[in-house]
């Protein structure tokens, strides 16, 4: 102990002449730091109501609630987060996980009210003075709680695939599928959008749990064609996938394929019929057409105990899936796998029987208690330009059917395809393969009215067609097919300026001065398909038709003739999953109808 120990503490007196450090002005707010985790803001238009915020909140402070003025639409649940400040701990995990970055925190932190209920509020909807604050917590840069890039799908290299019809998408490995499945946030926007309302998050979860059998069971609840859909579905689910807002949507289609691929056909019965008890019913149902809608209706009806029989005009089942979609996208053995299982469930099928010709529709009405018809769109549509009646002008669907039937088709050295949709790409790529096989080179060109950016075909179809050395030259209107000495010389086209008018009606405008000539010996038209309803001519006057010539049905796909249900492309679509969905709904409708009968 020294004298210093007595004097030293008095040094504190020097603070007397220093300014006080406490805030002198208690009435003005001190703004929170630019990153401060203050009160919530939400951009309501940007938010899609996916509920990731609700899911991650460890305090259960967030509830997804309906909000006036926000509709439930595809890709938007219509719900918005309501935050309870009695529970919130401002950790901002909700912000970091937000699928659209719409949810942020302001740097505001004082809010005084005598009513405790106001502290449970819907950010963005209940207007707050901090709604426009520029500062506060946002998702940190380069900080992601999920992966926003897809697991890349391995495909055959263009040079390996452009000569053959073998499947070029290789499918995921276990690791790849699990990594892709991991990106799902279980929001269910996909389920709401899928025409068949497949339980997508649930079967994706089965992949994460490495339980393929469970995955298959889940898929069959709403879709009896998973191998097929796992390859060629139009995947509307992926367009609305919440993950797609910050990155690439989940490859839902490939995941579906992964599950189905993992379970061998020989195990299907065991997996799908475990504990299944079907009470056979006395009533019988006839199904016209073995496309996806017919197969789906048949499968679900057979599960309900009905004796079902399909009448198919072609030698094999599958409709456009077999006779339209090329096998490099959808191999026949995979079609067979799905269909074999359906047929193994007691569904009968008779091939090479055309209703309206071999059996009349009246006969069916007599022999069966109900009829479901899904006959699809199989008639080609012509551009009707001069020259289109030439014998070397074909419809895409006819050629594709011939290819599937195994008939040798005409393949010339120079071919032009008119059309810019997926069917046009299918025939273009099929012809490219055949040219390659026949001539060792590709010379097929596809052209359409639509400019590149609004081409109806999927982007990857166009890219892959080009990879296979086909030429895609969009934005041209066909004028006439030039014919000399009875032989096709090529296609004359003019620049197409726009396809639709201001009201969205089809009304193409051309610049007649900008011309082009595509030399060719053969022309293929692929501008859409029409339906052949001659088989119901005899009952036509008892049916109701819409202005566009479609049979009018109710929400159960029942026509104005109560025993006659209609689905598939001739009602809605055109794609496989819509066919599956309405076949399933019609099956339930038929069950209801027959129960009342």
């Amino acid at each position, binding site marked *: *102990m020294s004298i*210093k*120990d*007595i004097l*030293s*503490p008095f*040094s*504190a007196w020097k*603070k007397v002449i220093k300014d006080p*450090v406490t805030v002198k002005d208690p009435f003005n707010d001190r703004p*929170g*730091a*630019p*990153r*401060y*985790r203050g009160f919530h803001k939400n951009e309501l238009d940007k938010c899609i109501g996916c509920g*990731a915020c609700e*899911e*991650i909140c*460890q*305090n259960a402070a967030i509830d997804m609630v309906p909000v006036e003025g926000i509709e439930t639409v595809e890709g938007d649940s219509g719900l918005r987060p309501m935050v309870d400040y009695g529970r919130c*701990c*401002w*950790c*901002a*995990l909700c912000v*970091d*996980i937000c699928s659209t970055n719409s949810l942020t*925190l302001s740097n505001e932190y004082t809010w005084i009210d005598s009513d405790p209920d106001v502290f449970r509020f819907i950010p963005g909807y209940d207007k707050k003075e901090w709604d426009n604050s520029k500062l506060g*917590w946002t998702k*940190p*840069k*380069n*900080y*992601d*709680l*999920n*992966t926003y890039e897809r697991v890349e799908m391995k495909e055959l290299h263009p040079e390996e695939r452009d000569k053959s019809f073998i499947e070029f998408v290789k499918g995921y490995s276990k690791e790849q599928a699990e990594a892709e499945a*991991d*990106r*799902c*946030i*279980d929001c269910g926007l996909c389920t709401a959008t899928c025409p068949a309302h497949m339980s997508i998050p649930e079967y994706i*979860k089965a992949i*994460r749990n490495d339980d393929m059998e469970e995955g298959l069971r889940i898929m069959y609840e709403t879709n009896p064609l998973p191998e097929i859909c796992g390859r060629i579905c139009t995947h509307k689910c992926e367009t609305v996938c919440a993950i797609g807002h910050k990155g690439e949507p989940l490859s839902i289609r490939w995941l579906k394929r992964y599950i189905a691929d993992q379970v061998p056909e020989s195990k299907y019965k065991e997996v799908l019929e475990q504990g299944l008890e079907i009470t056979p019913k006395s009533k019988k149902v006839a199904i016209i057409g073995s496309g996806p809608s017919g197969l789906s209706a048949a499968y679900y009806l057979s599960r309900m105990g009905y004796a079902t029989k399909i009448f198919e005009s072609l030698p094999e089942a599958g409709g456009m899936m077999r006779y339209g979609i090329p096998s490099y996208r959808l191999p026949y053995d995979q079609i067979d796998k799905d269909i074999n299982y359906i047929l193994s469930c007691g569904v009968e099928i008779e091939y090479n029987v055309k209703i309206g010709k071999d059996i009349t529709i009246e006969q069916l009405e007599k022999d069966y208690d109900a009829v479901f018809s899904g006959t699809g769109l199989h008639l080609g549509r012509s551009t009707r330009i001069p020259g289109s009646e030439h014998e070397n002008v074909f419809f895409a669907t006819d050629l594709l059917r011939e290819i599937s039937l195994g008939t040798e088709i005409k393949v010339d050295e120079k071919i032009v395809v008119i059309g810019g949709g997926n069917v046009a790409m299918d025939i273009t790529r099929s012809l490219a393969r055949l040219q390659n096989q026949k001539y060792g080179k590709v010379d097929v060109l596809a052209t359409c009215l639509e400019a590149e950016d609004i081409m109806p075909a999927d982007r990857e179809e166009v890219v892959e067609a080009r990879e296979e050395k086909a030429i895609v030259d969009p934005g041209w209107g066909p004028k006439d097919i030039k014919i000399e000495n009875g032989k096709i010389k090529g296609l004359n086209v003019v620049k197409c300026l726009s396809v639709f008018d201001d009201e969205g009606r089809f009304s193409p405008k051309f610049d007649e001065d900008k011309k082009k000539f595509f030399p060719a010996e053969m022309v293929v038209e692929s501008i859409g398909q029409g339906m052949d309803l001659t088989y119901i001519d005899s009952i036509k006057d008892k049916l109701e038709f819409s202005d566009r010539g479609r049979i009018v049905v109710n929400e159960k796909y029942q026509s104005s003739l109560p025993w006659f249900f209609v689905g598939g492309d001739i009602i809605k679509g055109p794609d496989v999953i819509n066919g599956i969905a309405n076949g399933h709904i019609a099956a339930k409708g038929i069950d209801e109808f027959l129960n009342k009968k």
Partner: protein
Amino acid sequence: MFSIKEDRSKFPTKKADGTLDIDLDSQKYVKIWQGPNHPGITGNMALELTVSGDEVVQSKTHVGYLYRAFEKLMERRKFIQCFPICIRMCVPEPDINEYLLAASVEELGGIEVPEMAEWLRTLVLEMARVTILLRGVPGQGGTMSLGMGVQWGVYVRDLMLDRFEELTGGRVYHMYIAPGGVRGLLPSGFKDRMEEVLKKVDEFVVDIDNLMFNNAVFKVRTKGVGIIDKDWIDQYSVVGPNARAAGIMRDVRKDYPYLKYDQLDFEPHTETDSDIYARSRVRWHDLQTSVDLIRQIMAKMPEKGEIRAKTPNVLHWKIPKGETYQRIESSRGEYGFYMVTDGSAYPRRINLRGPSYNSAMVLLEKMLVNANISDVSSLMVSLATCPPEIER
């Protein structure tokens, strides 16, 4: 000088079973409660004191006033959801929990954290140490009514909290170190503003030296008081500053280096007297060491870099079956998380092992016997107990 002559006759004798024979009806003893609310302690904790005159003859520590089942709650939370909870296990120094949770998850999940994130974690942990010591060091004076230092400390601490706020978005609960990385780079100009704060800490260090450590009253009340016997250090797992005050070098940063500590130049301070003064003095040195470390980190850390490793989607991040013990040097010494995982998306068990348990439940009860009532809070604070760490 001011020693109190002991009158052993007042003391209870031992019964045959070894317990003290305290008969309250004899009127020789009084039971008084210190706490559960006591400003000397962060959180609530009570000492049930039996005193004879002004001397403590028996003390019993009571906890349970803060119990919110954090460890249990975490068993019902996904791994990412645990980090806003675990911080509550030590309010004045929450970051150590964030780090341990992250380190455990990363260890078991096989995640390697980017270099930049490691530097930022080291920085934040030292900032946290400065923050708690700015209250803890002058707090020792506070227990004997030398409140002025506490006020100075609180002011400088607030400036450090400003830095936390701009870096992490929060002042007290930073929620910055999350499994996989950290939640942001340094804001621009941060280092300059941090340097300003560090200068204030430097001033504070001198001021508190003058006010508290070179203070006759403080010395009398702390030197030779509350000695932790050297033998007890191992016996009761005394760690960190409390061990170093007894001359035993124990610092996880040196003994089992983690993060970037092996790239930093520092020597933890030791004393020999093992009394309240020595422990205070060690913490005062620790404060300076941390300030120096922050300067070193800011000079050595890269300017840019990734802040988060790629992890599975946090919403269903499953950690393989396993167990790990991760430790860290907190301001109170070794502090660890024992985590068990069962392959699911939830921790099977997270158990916190902190120094406060031994300090408050064992050491303190032992040391308070024969202590003067006026020294009780001083003794308690000198062990630096953080009650929420005892009841998780």
